[in-house]
């Protein structure tokens, strides 16, 4: 089984870079899993429609991205594709192709993907101002985010 772990976000927009940082730290803390041949880890600033290819090329995909809901900054969300509409983006990526829309589009166009495991680990963002660096609550949530990634992978392996 080919599994892709994809950190998504913009590192120059504060907590928007949480997904990238979580995947980076997970690779550091779980090197045995991260180096397995069937596991591929990627950092993707703004995948846009290219995310469709990543979904189709792999048997399972774990996406790690910053999200915004009414939860406290640093809260880790486990989001199933069915719940994605809750997180439909306000066109935060090039030409309006956010993660939620792209997954929906992929599933709409390719019904076989309905059974394709897609897990989204969402990290509640605090501030998304210009500039690099995560806010304190999001920094503190990184170990939890890494464990969430590891748990999802272990379920799949």
């Amino acid at each position, binding site marked *: 089984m080919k599994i892709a772990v994809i950190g998504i976000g*913009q590192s120059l927009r504060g907590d928007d870079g949480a997904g990238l940082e979580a995947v980076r730290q997970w690779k550091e803390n779980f090197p045995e899993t991260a180096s397995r041949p069937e596991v591929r880890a990627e950092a993707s600033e703004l995948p846009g429609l290219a995310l469709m290819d990543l979904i189709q090329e792999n048997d399972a995909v774990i996406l790690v991205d910053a999200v915004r809901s009414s939860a406290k900054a640093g809260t880790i969300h486990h989001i199933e594709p069915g719940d994605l509409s809750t997180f439909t983006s*306000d066109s935060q*990526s*090039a*030409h309006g*192709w956010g993660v939620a829309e792209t997954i929906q589009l992929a599933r*709409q*166009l390719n019904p076989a993907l309905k059974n394709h495991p897609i897990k989204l680990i969402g990290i509640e963002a605090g501030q998304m101002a210009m500039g690099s660096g995560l806010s304190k609550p999001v920094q503190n949530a990184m170990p939890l985010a890494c464990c969430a990634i590891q748990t999802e992978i272990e379920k799949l392996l």
Partner: protein
Amino acid sequence: MTTIEVPALARVEGEGGLFIKLENGQAVEIRLDIYEPPRFFEGFLRGRFLQEVPDITARICGICPVAYQMSSAFALEKALGIEIFPQARALRRLMYCGEHIESHALHIYMLQAPDLLGKQSALELAAVAPDIVKNALRLKKIGNEILKAIGGRSVHPVNVCVGGFYRWPDAAALKALLPDLEWGLDAAMDSVKWAITLPYPDLEIDYEFVSLHHADEYAVIEGDVWSSKGNKVSIADYETRYIEEHVKHSNALHGHTMDGNTYLVGPLARLNLNHEQLSPAAQKALKDSGIKLPLKNPYKSLIARAIELVQFYEEAIRLVEAYKPEGPAHVELELKAGEGAGATEAPRGLLYHRYKIDENGLVQFARITPPTAQNLPRIEADLFALAPQIVKLPEEEATLTAEQLVRAYDPCISCATHFLKLKVEENRE
């Protein structure tokens, strides 16, 4: 006085807001507020070595990085007084075909067509017409594959350098694209047939169209700057007729002609000025469409893009078939102080660069005039023309109609996050 704020225009590139003030059924003020911070590329290019410029300026846009590489490379080659090898020139055109293909396929199907069909997004379109969206994504992907084969990756490709290319791309990798390109040409022909069936709002504007023109080819990378008002200047003289100025409400400069008129760049301008240079299949697509030129309806730039899609697919096939890398991929540079201008046709229109360099090849001065800066005043003027129709509509519909017009231009305000808010202020006193 009523103020209406609607978070709106997704599917454009960059951060901006639209402000419309109506009084007694008339628009008295229309502004495209571009509040996205200026990016100072022209400032931080100063002091950089000329060979860094194509890849730095490419970062201005994720949708049309090749355009920035091309205009900057040609400008700097002019400054050094060198000409690239014929095969390198052909390869630049091929690379540009890839960019036009991916940008146009995206805009036609994913950004503008949903508007015309009354859908909120391409997702809704995919629900009722999945095959159209699947084909659109394939059409787009093939464009990205060309970029990958030449430039190593499908977004922000590298390999273009001042003097040509760093290395010749693998001929086998390019030839392997031919079956997809052949499919793409057929699908592009179908795109034109489909495009003319779409419902377009009625709006005809007496534009001054401006684009590059080249006697022997559909102008993309070189030529003279032609205007539909009859004016013709060389690229080197572009700034004697076309200037940019700062306006208070916009962090993007506004372009106009020296005598203060707005003008339009982009696919409509290219098609209207250069249809005689279209490739045979694109000529046929145009003829079969029954479209009469000049096309003056801004919404119908979608049709112009579809015809160009045919042009660039057909040209890509020809260029791939003829690709024969021999000898060095770039001319060796002899550094000297100089100044040079370059202009190419980005998917959204004419993109002009000018650089001054010193004897060590370091940039002393840079000027970059992107297509959207030239079109911004024209978009505002179009909205004025549209206003009498807008005021009669219910609020939601009025907003959507204005957004659709802006979106028809495919404006590229920047490549970061983006959000456009429409604010209509109505004074009924």
